[in-house]
């Protein structure tokens, strides 16, 4: 397994690099958030800002702190959404049609289940095995419920939100779910084979 990504579907502060920097100088947080997607793939960064349009600045909060807390144990290795886009050059990762189908179904089932039990903040762990050309995936961290505290956090985090920064990861479960699904659609794509039914 050459790389492991922890994907949440939001680009805000989700660079492993950023995390390390943030730890060093916490002040630079706001400026580092926009994803530095390479210029030549401008179309993809458009796509991600489309996503932001779906989740305007009224979704407050930032996962910077949360991520910094949550993943600083392994800052050098588990990579985040931003790194994923960098790794794939902003293009979706190709999956075989069958893999993508079951992946998609699983995502739908799991996120639906989790949003029904009012859980959010889960992420998907994607390990890429380049030798076997295989992804090993699993949804993790699904133990956080959207409760009063979380609502407070949401309000609290809305204050430092700057216009133009990425959507935060703390939002209501259904919104979290649809953002998650959209992001997964954007990150992974089907590659049709000869036998793919259209």
């Amino acid at each position, binding site marked *: 397994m050459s790389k492991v990504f922890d994907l949440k579907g939001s680009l805000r502060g989700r660079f492993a690099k950023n995390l390390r920097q943030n730890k060093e100088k916490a002040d630079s947080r706001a400026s580092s958030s926009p994803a530095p997607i390479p210029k*030549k793939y401008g179309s993809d960064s458009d796509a991600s800002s489309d996503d932001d349009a779906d989740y305007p600045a009224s979704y407050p909060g930032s996962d910077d702190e949360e991520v910094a807390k949550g993943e600083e144990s*392994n800052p050098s290795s*588990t990579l985040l959404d931003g790194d994923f886009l960098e790794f794939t050059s902003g293009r979706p990762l190709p999956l075989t049609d069958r893999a993508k189908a079951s992946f998609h179904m699983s*995502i739908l089932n799991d996120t639906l289940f989790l949003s029904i039990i009012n859980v959010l903040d889960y992420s998907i762990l994607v390990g890429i095995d380049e030798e076997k*050309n295989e*992804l*090993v995936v699993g*949804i993790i961290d699904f133990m956080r419920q959207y409760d009063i*505290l979380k609502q407070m956090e949401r309000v609290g985090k809305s204050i430092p939100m700057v216009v133009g920064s990425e959507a935060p990861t703390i939002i209501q479960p259904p919104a979290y779910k649809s953002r998650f699904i959209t992001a997964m659609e954007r990150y992974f794509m089907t590659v049709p084979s000869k036998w793919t039914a259209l």
Partner: protein
Amino acid sequence: MDGHIPVAEHPKEATDRADTKDEEKDRYATWTYCMNCRKVVTPLSYISDETWNYSFGKFLELSFYNKTASINAPEHQCHCQLQVHSTLYFGCGNLAARFSYERIRPYNVFLRRYLPFDEAFHKKFTVLELNEIMMSSSDLFERFNKHIETTTSDTRALFKSAVNKPEHLQTLLSELHVIGKEVAHASSILKSKIVSVTNSYNSYNKDAESGYSYGEVGSAPYDAFSHFPWHARRYLFLLTSAWNERLGAIVQAVSSMNKVVAISQKLSIGGRSDIGIPQGVGADGELDEVIDSMQRLKEIKEVYANFKIGDMDIQSNLVSLPDKRAQEVNDDIEDDDFNTEMPVSVDDDIQINFSEEVDADVLASRQRRSVKQVEPNLLPSRRGSEVDGRRRNNIPPNRRSKDGGSYNSQLPQRDSFASISSRSPSPSPQQRAKAVSAGGAVKSAIDRFFRGRGKEEDITTVDLGIFNQGRPRLDPGVGGVVIPVFDDQPSTIIAHSLASVDYESQFRRHTRTYLKESGSYKRGSAGNDELISRGIDQHRSKKEDSRSSRRGRSEQRRNADKISASMAQMSNIKIDIEKRMLVRNKTHVKHTFRDYDEKGTQIAKFVCTTFWSTQFQAVRQAFLKEKESDKAPGFTYGKNLIEKNFVKSLQASLSFAAVGGKSGASFSKTTDDRFIVKSISRTELQMFLDCAPAYFEYLSKAFFHGLPTMLCKIVGVYQIGYHNRETGKRTMEQVAVMQVSCGCNFYLFVESPFTNNGIIRISSTVATCQRSLT
């Protein structure tokens, strides 16, 4: 495989070529560059309006999907492949778009449906552990031999002086000799046992490989083999601490005799000429001491009289347990946050029992001593009685002996040792009262306080090294399985609890309740076990069948019947598992256990609450098995087997860097790469407890109804409390045990001292073994 068209557009800032000929800003131009010839092979030309009406996607498809087409550029002698070599450019104004072929290797997605036990890994691990035990134990035996040697020569030296009774010295020497023989005996037994366990496992394994290549874990030889290291360590611990006790008594006797010698010499120098037996007041305390230590030696000897070194049966429960336990367990039912303070240590605990057999001269000296304490005269004698008091407190075996009888054990196997203990004399309260003087009680309390630092004993005992680890005094679990506990590894606490007798009985109670409530369901879990065992039997018989060279057709048909029958059984088992997974009753199991030191003082207390025990057990049965196979259905199931292996996995884990999790909580991974033990917050636990029925329902759909899911399965949720009375440290944490999410080759991300880049791969067995063995 066919190449696929990457329909990826790369809009690009216009290059120099784009604006070489800017005739009209709004018209689209196209040109082709050949990557093989490294030049532009079709010059820039404008796209006509008619062309612009065609489908652009179709155009690209035709250009790139066609493997055989070549670039049509005769003027440049370029006949390269259109598909792989051409780069199509389209430009307009200052913009240009480039299209080229790129081969895509689509990924497969690996979804883990089963998480089987990695027997090979554990075998390697066990072998390493056994090696470690071999080495450390021979080292330890060596140290004991040395200790015995020096003590023997010390004792021999005492013969020079006539002060001490030669029969006492003889007793000491013979005792030393006995211990020496025991050391040799134990060493040879351990070696032969390790060899025989390994051999029987190996030969069994060979059998298994020649027959069926999988699924033979959990059978008796494997069990014996895999549990052997810790069993052996516990055995060695109990054995060697007994030696330590005996040697300690001997060393004490010798040192007090030496004192007597010294004092008598002093007295003789001081002008007194009665060198014979020092009846003088001065040496009285020391004489007491000698007599006491002889007495103690005798008692210890009695306690260990039937201690069979050869009896290294895996079932044996060598330690006798303090009777305090039985009471405290009852206290605990209410004791949620272990607020129970250290029980006020009762002085009886450390008093010697003066049995009927006490020598007359012992009693006499005792009386003398009590007089002395009231009226101390000479300085050396006072010091002597102090030492005496302290030594007295060191005397544990009687505690043991008195406890052994009253210990009410739930364990199915009682070994000989407990019965030995019960045989030794237990004192009547009056006798005890007689033995304690008020001053002595206070003094002993103070002594105990200082002894808590454990300096004094180190001189007279041999350090047990690795055999001291893992809290070997804890009760063995069901079937005598020894599961060590390491304070810094929560998973070991869970493992110990899951294997315990108490857990088993509480678990059974929950199962029974469920069966009663769902009256319609006749076959209980017992029935299920039966089913499983029947499945196994069939599997075995089938194996035998396959070995027999000739088989008639009828036999084949019978086998087919058997297979279909076991298929039916399997679906029954499945239904049973599903039902148990969907039980909505709370089936939490709370298990408290304690560790005691050799004096019976409680030194640590552990509480492990297993939430939703039966449901999670069902989850584990559905998930932690081998892949389903037609060959031997039924065999892939097996409640005990899966649970045993689960415990085995949890038994050794490696912590991630200390920080982690949302609240700076810990993360650890079992060394066999199967599970992550993750700390969760109280709120997360609460959330899970609320949603657990939904979770189980969801999982049952995934396991039994083909619902695709990628949820990282949680296979157990626990709350672990731990209070170490020696360090005063107490913790309470909630953990979730879940599958390792990124397959078997997941990396452990640690800021590790072992590697520079902070990544260690846990499949390197040696590193992990080092950690868990040292």
